[in-house]
């Protein structure tokens, strides 16, 4: 399959293939090095990183659901300075695009975190998390209104010159409106969807299972919702879309690209099959060959008849 071109571009960021890993599901990549050749993945988006260290929420943080899972981790991380000092020297050696997912609790803290990551030569892009449903301050609060989303993107855009991807929340009335708002403030791309807010209750104990009551739903259960949102956002903005939400295999990934995604992220599936990423890369190539296509870019938005 040497004649098949899997390369795709998110703004000025060139990826060797469209398969990235979703933040918070692949650690720093190194945790999976025994299972996959990390250099064969299109991009690795590392854990949500904040200006200050965060302990995250109390245990229990996870509940299994039908075809999915809920989590309320709450952005546990050691802070951006720890990342720059201790983790970056390791992840920069990985021969693929390594992106950092950036979160905060005010436009200023988002921007300062992004500024420090901008100084890291081998981090070509960030994914701005304005959609975490599991933190009290910031996170999703910014991502559910056009004004909130715009305010964070504006602040970060001024501080961050490289590729800026904004991760959108599905917990909104119109995701297309939010996408337009962040595009207007200079985002280079959007990624969607973050988790859908949900909850689980233990009937025997008559209490919520998760420590904070609610959590974010991921896995195949959310895929139809995610696919629909990528479809709608494709019609709303001109910037590239990174699609994610319940992708378990290459067919799922192809569907997201047909709906309008330029690249995809694999999240929860990494927990079921730690080697799934490379299988998806291979499966996309098989698909292209089977359909007589030579470039993965031919898939982008191809399900939209009116274009």
């Amino acid at each position, binding site marked *: 399959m040497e004649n098949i071109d899997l390369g795709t571009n998110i703004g000025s960021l060139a990826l060797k293939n469209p398969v990235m890993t979703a933040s*918070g599901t692949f650690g720093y990549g190194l945790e*999976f090095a025994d299972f996959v050749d990390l250099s064969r993945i299109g991009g690795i988006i590392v854990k949500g990183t904040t200006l200050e260290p965060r*302990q*995250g929420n109390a245990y*229990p943080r996870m509940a*299994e659901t039908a075809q999915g*899972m809920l*989590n309320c981790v709450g952005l*546990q991380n050691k802070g951006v300075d720890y990342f720059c000092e201790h983790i970056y020297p390791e992840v920069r050696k990985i021969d693929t695009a390594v992106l950092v997912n950036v979160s905060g609790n005010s436009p200023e803290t988002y921007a300062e975190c992004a500024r420090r990551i901008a100084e890291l030569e081998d981090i070509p892009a960030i994914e701005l998390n304005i959609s975490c449903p599991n933190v009290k301050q910031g996170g999703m609060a910014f991502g559910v209104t056009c004004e909130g989303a715009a305010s964070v993107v504006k602040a970060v855009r001024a501080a961050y010159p490289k590729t800026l991807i904004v991760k959108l929340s599905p917990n909104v009335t119109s995701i297309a409106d939010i996408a337009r708002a962040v595009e207007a403030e200079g985002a280079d791309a959007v990624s969607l969807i973050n988790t859908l807010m949900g909850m689980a209750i233990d009937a025997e104990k008559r209490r919520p299972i998760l420590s904070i009551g609610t959590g974010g739903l991921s896995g195949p259960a959310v895929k139809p919702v995610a696919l629909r949102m990528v479809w709608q956002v494709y019609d709303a903005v001109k910037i590239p879309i990174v699609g994610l939400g319940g992708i378990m295999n290459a067919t799922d990934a192809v569907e997201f690209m047909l709906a309008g995604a330029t690249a995809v992220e694999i999240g929860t599936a990494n*927990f079921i099959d730690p080697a799934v990423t490379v299988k998806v890369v291979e499966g996309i190539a098989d698909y292209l060959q089977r359909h007589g296509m030579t470039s993965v870019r031919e898939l982008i938005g191809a399900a939209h008849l009116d274009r």
Partner: protein
Amino acid sequence: MDKMKKYILDLVVRHITQPRPGYVLLQLTDPERPLPAMLPGQFVEVRVDGSPTTFLRRPISINFVDREANELWLLVHAVGDGTRALAQLQEGAVVNIVAPLGNGFTLPTTTSERYLLVGGGVGTAPLLYMGQELLSRGCRPVFLLGARSAQDLLQLELFRAIGDVYVTTEDGSEGERGFVTQHSLWADVDATQQWRICTCGPKPMMVAVSRLAREKGLPCEASLENLMACGLGACLCCVEDTTEGHVCVCKEGPVFNVEKLKW
């Protein structure tokens, strides 16, 4: 120890037996190559096929590794849909596992160390492999096993083949009546004889054992079983609040020195 290479393996069910109602022992083998190195206290993540309500892998402790037979033993308590599906497996079925995961119990550096392995319920499972490894290193282990009743005790004959076995049952139907921490054996367990405690079982039992060990000034390790998703330290779901903050049980544990825990 967390640097040990991890594998995704398709193993074959060589034997499946029911040591007690509600429990199954899966004896798995790799027909093509020797099983990878695995240490007592480590665990595996088992993919559950054919159960529509089960999405995530199930973390199961390593019960025993039989190198001669090239077998990995998993003792499964069928308590939910996932573990019930595992209990329905037939001989010859293929089981996909990720292994070995986490860090095991601290192994002895000299033969003068004495190990008391305290287990309750299905938590006794990893102590069998630990006992075997101790014996092979010249330390004959002492087991203290607790259960509700005689009919809930698992693999007693196998434990007896490896070390000295003491039992408590809550109803007194075997061994001494009461909890493991009430057994008369403890009167002879003190710091002068270099005792080390390893415990695995229900959390209240492990907390009580760790307090007793602390009172006696004995080092104690406990194996935790927090709810997990990835098993690899990626999802940060299985955290335990420790003296070093929230840490992943799957990666930093599941075996912890109890001094690190806020028990």
